[in-house]
């Protein structure tokens, strides 16, 4: 196998010294982490490396020498470097050399053991792969490589392939903590050797987050304790809470906030990302809500809205009345059964009349209600949208009632028809065997059955038409509500922090690596540049999508059509608990 030397780009300009890093024998690759400069005492270097190995659980060792010839070629330095291989023995021993004014490097890897001719070392073919240490340290591979449990000595041994390089660099953070201004025994060169990277804002935020988290966590626990109070469990309140989507949204947000402000630290990167995504999502929600609030409260829009609400409800009721008058006549040229038509039409008209009276009763309070509902926008845009969806449901309650009446009537009719059709053919439904069996009926049974069957068949068009019209109206309302819920879901579950990270710091979310071949010269070792291949936006959304609270349709199109045909009631936007009718 060709020996691969992973060399950090920040050390390419460093002075001569020793190469320190980890040797991965399975892939025959040497991951160079830092360069130790002269002067040094070998025993101190060995002590330092043993310390680092203990703290980071990474098998750090001296891999070879690095020679950067800035002035005229120094032969004594070359001999001195060769002598070091006797002090720090490592198989294989790397010797990297860079000439002044030349972009090409020379590299030698010598092995003493396992060579064919004893007494002379064997040389391996070497390939130099440059990598950006800072980016590799901060990036996270997707899918994450599975790590073994921490009891084994070398924690990064479990990662295979190039993930081993990432793990080695990520785990050796303790090696990168000393910079060149430190007065330690060993002088290192790595990506942070010019000064450890830190941000004062981040440090302040970390310091302040402790007490703030505690305070907010206690507030939130108080709120959840109040909401779990026995007063809210009296019937019919839980029934009402389960039907309103606003309560669901508030509960979901409360859960999210509890998770964000919990005093425990996140253990692994995925939990950290989830917390960050939730935090950004809540902030965006509140920002959008406040924008909506400022828009609503300016220029007297609340009054306009409240004034427009009652006429809109009136208009809807008027249109329904026109529709019913049309159905009671000869709709689309179809001939209805006059008596049944009149009965159904009058019944629904009276219902609308009741509804209109109710709306008119409420009209003086509408403005106050709208004003208070508008205030809820400061809790977030999602809460306002849920309230809007609930208001639509309440205002179109009569359409829902009509749909239920029509569906029940139609369902009864279909059941009756199917059973009498079987009687007409001389068959019966066997409940025990769950199948259709033949049956011999008496003459009077057959007579009455056929009569009823005929009546139901001739009344079918009228009922079917009413059912069709009200089902279409109900589906329209459901579609509008569904669109609002879709928007709420989108705001809830979009991982904005992850998307922002992918946009601004693409190396943090890595799907893999990519290589570029640098300038070559015959006879010199191959030089490659390893760069991070970022995750695509689709995969970012897929991996970091926040869980929704399950308000999505549970039917497929086929089952929906079947239910519509047989007159069964459909509840597409209900939670999974109350699916029974």
């Amino acid at each position, binding site marked *: 196998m060709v020996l691969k030397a992973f060399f950090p780009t920040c050390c390419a300009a460093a002075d001569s010294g020793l190469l320190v890093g980890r040797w991965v024998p399975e892939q025959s690759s040497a991951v160079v982490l830092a360069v130790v400069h002269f002067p040094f005492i070998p025993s101190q270097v060995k002590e330092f490396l043993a310390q680092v190995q203990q703290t980071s659980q990474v098998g750090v060792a001296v891999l070879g020498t690095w020679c950067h010839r800035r002035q005229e070629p120094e032969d004594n330095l070359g001999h001195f470097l060769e002598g070091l291989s006797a002090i720090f023995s490592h198989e294989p021993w790397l010797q990297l050399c860079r000439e002044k004014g030349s972009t090409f490097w020379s590299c030698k890897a010598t092995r003493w053991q396992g060579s064919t001719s004893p007494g002379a070392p064997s040389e391996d073919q070497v390939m130099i792969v440059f990598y950006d240490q800072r980016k590799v340290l901060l990036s996270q591979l997707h899918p994450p490589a599975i790590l073994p449990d921490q009891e084994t000595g070398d924690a990064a041994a479990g990662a295979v392939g190039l993930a081993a390089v990432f793990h080695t660099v990520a785990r050796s953070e303790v090696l990168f903590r000393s910079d060149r201004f430190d007065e330690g025994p060993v002088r290192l060169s790595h990506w942070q050797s010019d000064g450890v990277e830190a941000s004062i804002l981040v440090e302040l935020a970390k310091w302040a987050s402790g007490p703030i988290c505690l305070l907010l966590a206690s507030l939130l626990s108080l709120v959840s304790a109040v909401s779990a109070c026995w007063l809210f469990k009296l019937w019919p309140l839980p029934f009402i809470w389960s039907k309103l989507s606003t309560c669901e949204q508030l509960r979901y947000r409360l859960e999210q906030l509890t998770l964000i402000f919990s005093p425990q630290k996140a253990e692994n990167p995925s939990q950290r990302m989830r917390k960050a995504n939730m935090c950004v999502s809540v902030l965006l929600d509140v920002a959008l809500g406040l924008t909506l609030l400022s828009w609503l409260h300016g220029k007297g829009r609340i009054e306009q809205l409240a004034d427009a609400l009652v006429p809109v409800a009136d208009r809807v009721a008027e249109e329904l009345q026109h529709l019913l008058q049309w159905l009671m006549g000869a709709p689309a040229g179809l001939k209805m059964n006059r008596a049944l038509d009149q009965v159904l039409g009058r019944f629904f008209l009276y219902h609308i009349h009741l509804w209109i009276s109710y709306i008119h009763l409420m009209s003086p309070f509408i403005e106050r209600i709208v004003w208070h509902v508008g205030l809820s926008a400061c809790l977030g845009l999602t809460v306002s949208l849920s309230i809007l969806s609930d208001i639509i449901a309440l205002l179109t309650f009569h359409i829902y009632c009509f749909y239920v009446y029509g569906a029940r009537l139609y369902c009864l009719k279909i059941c009756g028809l199917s059973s009498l059709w079987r009687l007409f053919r001389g068959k019966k439904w066997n409940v025990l065997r769950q199948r259709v069996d033949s049956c011999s009926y008496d003459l009077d049974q057959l007579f009455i059955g056929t009569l009823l069957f005929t009546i139901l068949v001739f009344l079918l068009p009228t009922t079917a038409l009413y059912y069709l019209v009200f089902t279409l109206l109900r589906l329209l309302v459901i579609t509008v509500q569904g669109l609002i819920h879709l928007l709420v879901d989108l705001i809830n579950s979009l991982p904005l922090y992850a998307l922002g990270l992918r946009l601004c710091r693409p190396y943090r979310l890595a799907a893999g690596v990519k*290589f570029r071949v640098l300038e070559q010269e015959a006879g010199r070792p191959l030089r490659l540049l390893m760069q991070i291949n970022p995750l695509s936006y689709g995969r970012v959304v897929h991996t970091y999508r926040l869980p929704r609270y399950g308000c999505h349709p549970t039917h497929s199109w086929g089952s929906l059509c079947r239910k519509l045909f047989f007159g069964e009631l459909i509840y597409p936007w209900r939670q999974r608990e109350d699916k029974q009718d």
Partner: protein
Amino acid sequence: MENEQSFSDICGGRLALQRRYYSPSCREFCLSSPRLSLRSLTVVTSTVWLAAYGLFTVCENSVVLSAAIFITLLGLLGYLHFVKIDQETLLIIDSLGIQMTSSYASGKESTTFIEMDKVKDVIINEAIYMKVIYYLCILLKDPVEPHEISQVVPVFQSAKPRLDCLIEVYRSCQEILAHQKAPSTSPQAHQKAPSTSPSIQKASIVSRGK
């Protein structure tokens, strides 16, 4: 060492294969398709604008014309950025892996790298799609069962070169992969001679129309 040769793809268009041998363990193959021709661009643009002008004479609304210009511009940008692949590159590095890059006409590059541990073999496969076509693909090992194949990754999907071009690439890749299968450090290891004639696997896979 660089080498350029011209081949043709399955539809008869011209392709240019550029071979670069960086070192005995690293080779690169670059297939370039012909660029977007001015003639097809003009034809499409004029059709769209004529249709828009026809609509404008019918409905007398100038929004149709501005919409047509907008659609043409967006369509062209979208085509250049997401659809038109100008160059496809295969870089094979011994003991590291195989990298496939597609460069789009707008300059976007999409790269996939497969590590050498996962690569089982590089083969030329046969597909039946209206006629018989050949495509080069990389077989990946199953992580659970090392002798099973878990995935087939086709290469040069948009350029679609013919068999003569594929044979050249196949031979070069096999020379490098031979190092993997018979490591040179053990002298008593059985050296498998790289086959001179490519092993074309006859798999009657009805391809999806790509």
